[in-house]
């Protein structure tokens, strides 16, 4: 835990300058109540339960050095890994807390002495990747890439919540040559929303909001650093969009249900038609009252939507049966697709099956199979992909994966999607960290 302690120490050092005045009055320091204090620790009640269970809470005391002219306030560390610096508390969480969208709704519990509780989280998630590519019928190639580079800032003040999430992306699509500043990496908004929590059960968001289904399924899959879920891989649902959403955290860990109403063009396009997307989603643990069976989850989703200036139908019906616990997880997701890109009448079907395990606390194994029938009427035009991975959880914030992918197409799809078939070997380094600062005003 030395690395964790160092990072927390650095955060403490920053806070020390920012809050030194407040820190002078040690008498105002908030008192731990002994309740779980990190979002990770509360994850059994939060919406991001499964990944966060993997996060071992706890760190060692800070070693930030004081100076003679500005003596540091005393920093103490609780059993839950929360560092107290004056009136501000700091906790460090790993990536799944940032995840597709962290549950900002849950505030650490502590004695506010009547003040207004607040929390600010700053996080980053980055996938660095080296790919060795063997396209069918063409020469091999290799390259470095960063499939994901995220920077997030979230807050909660009493019941008001919000988040801004920046992501790095290329200025232009594959195949293009010139964009902004040649083909630079750019930062763009992935999320920018404000919201309100009601009774710590219902959260309402508006702005550039994460959609519901794809982030929830991704959280169950957990190995986003290795591969996207099928609905995202084939660009069938957007992960964020302009609009509003609301969800309910069901009590007793039974899961969540939600609804979103959005433009339908995703977060990288303005609205192009009058239609809006209505998404209904449920992610429930039906047997949560039996602790041993709580990992059993059912995810259901329905999207009624339109895409593009032609208002092509973009409806999705998704059903998923999952087992989700840190040591082992697996699931099968079946999706019915009405509308593929601008072919609104086209019906397709997607099967996404996956399995993952965490052995000996550090060894990660995973497999994913996607089978996409792009034309259900004929049962042809199919794309199939397979991903196998073995990785290591080096520390809570760093994971390394070796992955092998195979992509196959039937005869019709091979002509229509030239050069899609290939084998890849990838080395992925995933770095996740969220620092959460909280206190009371």
């Amino acid at each position, binding site marked *: 835990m030395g690395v964790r302690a160092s990072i927390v120490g650095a955060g403490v050092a920053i806070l020390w300058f920012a809050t030194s005045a407040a820190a002078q009055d040690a008498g105002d320091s908030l008192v731990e109540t002994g309740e779980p204090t990190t979002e990770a620790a509360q994850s059994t009640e939060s919406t991001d339960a499964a990944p966060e269970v993997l996060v071992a809470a706890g760190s060692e005391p800070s070693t930030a050095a004081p100076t003679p002219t500005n003596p540091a306030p005393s920093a103490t560390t609780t059993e839950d890994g929360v560092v107290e610096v004056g009136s501000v508390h700091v906790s460090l969480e790993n990536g799944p807390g940032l995840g597709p969208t962290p549950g900002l709704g849950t505030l650490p519990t502590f004695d506010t002495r009547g003040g207004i509780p607040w929390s600010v989280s700053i996080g980053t998630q980055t996938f660095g990747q080296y790919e060795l590519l063997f396209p069918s019928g063409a020469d091999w190639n290799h390259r470095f890439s960063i499939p994901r580079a995220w920077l997030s800032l979230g807050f909660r003040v009493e019941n008001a919540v919000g988040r801004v999430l920046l992501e790095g992306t290329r200025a232009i699509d594959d195949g293009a*040559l010139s964009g902004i500043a040649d083909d630079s990496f750019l930062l763009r908004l992935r999320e920018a929303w404000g919201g309100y929590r009601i009774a710590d059960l219902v959260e309402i968001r508006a702005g550039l909001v994460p959609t519901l289904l794809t982030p929830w399924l991704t959280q169950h899959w957990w190995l986003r650093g290795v591969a996207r879920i099928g609905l995202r891989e084939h660009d069938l649902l957007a992960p964020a969009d302009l609009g509003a959403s609301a969800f309910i955290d069901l009590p007793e860990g039974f899961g969540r249900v939600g609804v979103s109403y959005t433009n339908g063009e995703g977060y990288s396009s303005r609205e192009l038609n009058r239609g809006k997307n209505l998404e209904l989603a449920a992610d429930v643990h039906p047997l949560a009252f039996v602790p041993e069976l709580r990992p059993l989850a059912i995810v259901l989703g329905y999207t009624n939507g339109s895409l593009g*200036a032609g208002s092509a139908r973009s409806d999705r019906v998704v059903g998923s049966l999952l087992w989700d616990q840190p040591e082992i997880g697996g699931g099968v997701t079946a999706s019915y697709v009405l509308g593929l890109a601008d*072919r609104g009448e086209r019906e397709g079907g997607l099967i996404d099956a996956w399995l993952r395990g965490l052995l000996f606390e550090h060894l990660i194994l995973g497999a994913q199979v996607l089978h996409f029938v792009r034309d259900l009427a004929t049962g042809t035009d199919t794309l199939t992909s397979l991903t196998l991975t073995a990785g290591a959880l080096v520390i809570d914030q760093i994971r390394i994966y070796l992955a092998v992918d195979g992509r196959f197409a039937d005869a019709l799809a091979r002509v229509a999607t030239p050069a899609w078939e290939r084998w890849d070997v990838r080395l992925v380094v995933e770095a996740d960290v969220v620092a959460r600062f909280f206190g009371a005003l």
Partner: protein
Amino acid sequence: MSNHALARAGRWTLLVASSAWIVSCGSSEPLDPAARTTAVVGAMVEADRRELSGRGDLVAGKYARMARTLYDFYRGTMPIFRADLADPRMRIARTEFDLPGQLPFSIGDAHPENFGLLLAADGTLALEPNDLDAADRYPYQLDLRRLTVGLVLASRGARLEDDEEDAVVRSCVSSYLTTLRAIDDGTYAPHRIDDGTDPILADLFRRGRRDLAERAELAALTVLESGARRFVRGAPDVDDPENVLSDLPPWAFSEIDSSLATYRSSLATPPPEGELTVLDAVREHGSGVASWARIRVLVLVRGPSDAPEDDVVLELKEETQSGASGPLPPGVFSDDEADRIRRATRAAWSRSDAEPRWGASSWLGMPVQIRLESEAQKTFRTDRLEGDRASVSSISTIAAVLGEMLARIQASDGLGADGRFASRLVARVGDRETAFVTGEVEAAVAHADVVTLDWELFREALRARGPTLGFVGETPIDGPDLERRALYGTPAEVRPWE
């Protein structure tokens, strides 16, 4: 019910009936008019979204131009064509002779009107591809079918019978395959295409040579005032009022010099600097079809001497990305747009100096292509297929010529292709030449029917949705700034298309 409503109902009845006709040819399933309209509108707006956001009036001009004639529509529909090629339900997307993983160099939009005369360094004219906006690396069937579908539409415009349009396509594809076989076995002798006895080629070269001798572009586009030449302003041709020349903003004019300096360095044989001294420059609106909304500037430069008789007109045109989707790593095959254009010319032409003034540069931060603007460089026009130029033998001859040229281009090593395409396709076809040719004929004829339906649906969509197909354009907040607005300019009023 009003007359207008009756007319609309009649049109839709016609559309439904024509869609039924499509059933057995264009796709394996009936093309539902409403669904097809969605696909047509969606593909066009998606492709034009960037331009629609900032210069919707220019895109409206392009759409009006596309609505006017079936062939003009076809020229502007590369986005739909690409989407159809990715949809196995469409006949155009199916072939027994695919080459997985192979992306030969090609010009990216090889319809017949993208070929024409170019004026070579030795002052002679030859038939070459003359539009390299989309040149890149593609599956071979994209350009082969873009060409053959265009030939079917041209044949229909010339009122050929069904079996005759089949013969035209057969001539093209046979020539294409024969050329690839010759390249593969080393017996192909690259040669320039010049005029022969074919009426179409003879007409093209006759008009080209006439205008070359007369320097017709100077007479058409410029005036002499006090011994100095400058462009006319307004419409140079009263019969084409949409094509207008207007003043450039001074700040944009002042940047042309530096753009030409870069352009000069892109040429294989750069002219003396003095030849590129800028005498005048104007914004041109109303040219082209697919690129109607792009920025075009005509630049009058000094030429070899101070005499106004040898002044030279150059066309500077905004370039955008090719649209190739980069399925093969690394996904791009040139450093930038200028590099792509420059290397494409070397690979696409029968000789490297087929048009020695064709180069690339950047201007005001955007990639541009700069080439000679000459009335001598006649483009092959399908609307000139009349009289003896409209016979099946004449059109078959030009079809064979274009098939040969496309084979030569795709067999080249342009943009890093390995140059082994000819041997690969020849091996893939083997002794099944008849099946290959027949398959291409079927695909081309079927898709020409689809394009015909699409044209009607597109026109109906314009009527129903408005001149930009319903796309909500710029707002004061996110619209172009005043400088860009001035550069885009205001096009002439677009003539009604019906």
